[in-house]
């Protein structure tokens, strides 16, 4: 820890500081990237183990589990997105499982990993929940914005997409082109912002509450701690599911002609 007996605000701030390398905007949050890759490699490995020996015959337990997940995601995509699912399916699966694992990291008691990192590895700061670091949700949602643009062009063509941007909500009169374009740009930007802020806000607030609970005396700590954790178990898959579903909805809106 930074000092032997930190005050409450020092403790909270310390827990909300990332392990950074570099200066200014090019700073790298090493902890966020590390835990993102850790969870990413974990889920890809698990899914690959299930898919590696996939047969049409009687599936094993691993294959069964992975198939259940894939089938559920595939159906969610199929219901909303009416186009080729070769990319959108894996995209939705990656979002759901990855964000789910990020969020689950929030349930690890807040001091365990930072203490280990400080005492064993000598790292001053460690934050383990990528979804509570604003950069990770925004990285996903900005990627989704790029995909929205790609799928708009793919579904409607450059001309169709441009036409929609200029004429869509109010009408095709030339005087309305500027308001239409402005409104569409706001809408386009609002999508990734709301997507990222919803996930970030939920997880950041939850993390903050866990940190505040950790300030309580040890003999009572587990009561609000476990109560909040149980409540948080609902939030964890819900936020992952929302991120996936909204991504599919945005892509289907982008892809389909109105």
């Amino acid at each position, binding site marked *: 820890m930074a000092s032997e007996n930190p005050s409450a605000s020092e403790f909270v701030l310390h827990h*909300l500081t*990332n392990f*950074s390398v*570099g200066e200014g*905007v*090019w*700073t*790298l*949050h090493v902890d*966020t*990237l590390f835990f*993102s*890759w850790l969870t*990413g490699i974990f*889920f*890809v490995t698990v*899914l*690959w183990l*299930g*898919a*590696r020996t*996939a*047969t*049409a*015959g009687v*599936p094993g337990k691993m*294959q069964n589990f*992975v*198939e259940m997940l*894939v*089938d559920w995601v*595939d159906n969610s995509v199929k219901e909303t997105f009416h186009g080729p699912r*070769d*990319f959108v*399916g*894996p*995209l939705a*699966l*990656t979002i759901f499982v*990855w964000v789910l694992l990020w969020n689950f990291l929030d349930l690890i008691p807040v001091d365990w990993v930072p203490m280990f990192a400080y005492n064993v590895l000598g790292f001053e700061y460690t934050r383990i929940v*990528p979804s509570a*670091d*604003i*950069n*990770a949700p*925004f*990285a*996903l949602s*900005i*990627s989704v914005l790029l995909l929205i643009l790609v799928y708009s062009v793919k579904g409607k063509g450059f001309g169709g997409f441009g036409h929609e941007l200029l004429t869509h909500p109010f009408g095709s009169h030339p005087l309305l082109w500027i308001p239409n374009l402005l409104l569409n740009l706001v809408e386009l930007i609002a999508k990734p912002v709301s997507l990222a802020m919803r996930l970030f806000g939920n997880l*950041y607030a939850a993390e903050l509450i866990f940190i505040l609970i950790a300030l309580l005396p040890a003999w009572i700590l587990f009561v609000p701690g476990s109560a909040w954790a149980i409540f948080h178990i609902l939030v964890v898959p819900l936020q992952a599911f929302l991120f996936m579903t909204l991504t599919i909805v945005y892509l289907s809106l982008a892809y389909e002609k109105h």
Partner: protein
Amino acid sequence: MQVSLGTLIAQGISFFVFIWVTMKLVWPPLVKAMAERRAKIADGLAAAERGKSELEEASTQADTLVRAARDQAAEILEQANRRAANIEAEAKADGERERERQLVAARAEIEQEISRARDELRGQVADIAITSAEKILGREIDAGKHRDILDKLAAQI
């Protein structure tokens, strides 16, 4: 909470790396396996349905065959009965005819026997008559001269 462009970009690249891995290694084999299994199950159900209808068909066919066999057996039995009755009637008729024939033959034989006996008797009667007349007249009667009388006498017997 600090905005970090570096983290943002690195995280975005990571995102696409994991999507790519999922797209290459995870998604296709599973979706393919599930589609194949779905097709297999559909085939199996269709085969079961087909087997059931075939069984039904076979059982109705067997029913028809059994019914036909039963009909045929009954017909054969009836024919045999008719044949037996015919044979019996024929045999009866044959017996009747044979009896009639033998009766007629016996009657003819008896008739013949009677007439033979009568002829014999007639001859003897003539002899007796001549002998008796000779005795009565004490002289010989010329059989040649009195033939007509003798014949008349024999005819009366």
